[in-house]
């Protein structure tokens, strides 16, 4: 939808772009550090942060006029995570008994 803000969005776009590149660099470097079991968490955490930036600012969800788009995004993520979580309810508990 049209950008209703009076100021140019360009500085914001470039800031997000830089942030994304920096995060990519960080994720690449962090992979070579020994963080034990936190390596995966850090990697996924940074990826999620990048994804959030892209969704909110490049895909204009932050400034979305109505809540519907946010609802679609959140619902989709919810069902995707449900797929993972309930599958893990099986795989994660197979060795319990």
């Amino acid at each position, binding site marked *: 939808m049209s950008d209703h803000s009076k100021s140019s969005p360009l500085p914001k776009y470039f800031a997000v772009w830089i942030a994304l590149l920096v995060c990519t660099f960080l994720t690449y470097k962090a992979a070579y550090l020994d963080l034990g079991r936190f390596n995966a968490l850090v990697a996924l955490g940074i990826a999620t942060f990048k994804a959030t930036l892209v969704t909110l600012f490049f895909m204009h969800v932050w400034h979305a006029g109505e809540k*519907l788009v946010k609802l679609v995004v959140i*619902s989709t993520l919810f*069902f995707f995570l449900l797929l993972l979580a309930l599958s893990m309810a*099986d795989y994660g*508990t*197979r060795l319990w008994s």
Partner: protein
Amino acid sequence: MSMATPTIQPVVRENYERENYLNKHYGVGSWLLTTDHKRIALLYLVSITFFFFIGGFFALLIRLELLTPASDLVQADTYNKLFTMHGMVMIFFFLVPSIPAVLGNFLVPMMIGAKDLAFPRINLLSWYLYIIGGVMMLHCMLTGGVDTGWTFYAPFSTAFTNTKIIEAGLAIFVAGFSSILTGLNFVVTIHRMRAPGMTWSRLPLFIWAHYATSIIQILGTPVIAITIVLVAAERALHLGIFDPKLGGDPLLFQHLFWFYSHPAVYIMILPSMGIISEIIACYSRKRIFGYSFVAFSSIAIAVFGFLVWAHHMFVAGISVYAALLFSLLSYAVAVPSAVKVFNWTATLYKGSIHYDAPMLYAFGFLGLFTIGGLTGLFLAALGIDVHVTDTYFVVAHFHYIMVGGAVMGYLGGMHFWWPKISGRLYPEGWAKLAALIVFIGFNLTFFPQFLLGYMGMPRRYADYSHMPEFQILNVFSTAGATILGVGYLLPMIYFLWSMRYGKPAPDNPWNAAGLEWMTPSPPTTFNFEQEPVVTWEAYNYDELDAPHKQEVPVVR
């Protein structure tokens, strides 16, 4: 004759003679390239009826084989193909599209006061994808078919069977895309194209039901799509994603498969529930009791439906803790369905009941869906499920819902809206007779299967000669199937007959509520000359019946 409340509009002889969506353009091209949602609905009607015959044909062969304990009509290999093709065709090419693609396509824009769906060309694309998938499936069947069961479990489907899995899978993939696009179209249409004044709480429950169905189509179908891709890749490249010999897990296939296929059953039943709401309201002359509960229960079914899939895997090897969780969740998913049944029943109370044909189908639905739903709860109980899984109990359960529920609703809806769709009235006497035949035939076919399953007859067996005492119930079942078939043929015959010889229909023969009844029968291409502005609540039967109520002298 029809017992419907007399209408105030005189029958206009030229209704079907003046310009409407059927006669506006002539020629094959005007149909095959149409973007009119009503014409696309009719294109779907013809196609899904065709596949219904195909699926029904396989059912006939199955029931013929089961007349005798020995596998004497067909070999076991062939029998495996019969029940597989019956399932695949009926589920993916009949039940999933039927109500949304026919009645949904026709009615959703009209019920919300719009001229068409949000994306008419994508609607046409949906139909073409369905046809392409259907042709692929036909070709697959004609060149050997598939023998894995419609559930095409790995590793049999990926590593052992030599039947045409990839082709059948691709056919379902393409048809699935058709389903996704229909759901997408409905969601955007319902959000964006409601007429002024048509708030969410004034929407017919048919719309709520289709909205919930569309959510499932959008979120669930892609998962079976990717599952098919993986199965095809595994089969073609000899991968080991699902093959235990190569380090894979067959249960992963089942998790991914059922993540869609369980919500898919809600795709099949929710639209039918929407129809039942419309029919019960009209023929009780009352607003649906507990409108908000019924509306939100549709959404609840859609959401909860995604939480229960592993109840198809209780004996497959999932952990017992997961089984407990899914059993509990499966009990929870029954609640919104029960909410609907209670509300429909409450609607009947003190209603002015008319026993027209659509209402007979609705009554049938109420009873049969309740039985089907309750037997689902039996299956959700782990102890019982271990005993009856993979027996005819399960087969009876899902046929009660899908045939006793979804198909009854579909037939009721086709009768209810037939005057709107075709501009003609169907013969009421024959319609009542057909409804009765369907009900009797259905119960005779499937009730014995509950007994057979409980007594231990396995499903998907061509040969049950190790337990010949099952034969008598199987014979009942086959007899019932024949009667059921007659019951299905009758509407096809008299609907076709009515298109030529039926009484011309007035705009609102049942004096029903809803914007779709405020258009001519059949409607013009763009439905409404002017965009309606809605200022009344849904199911305003009080207002509709007010002119007809006679003053009753009140003695004080």
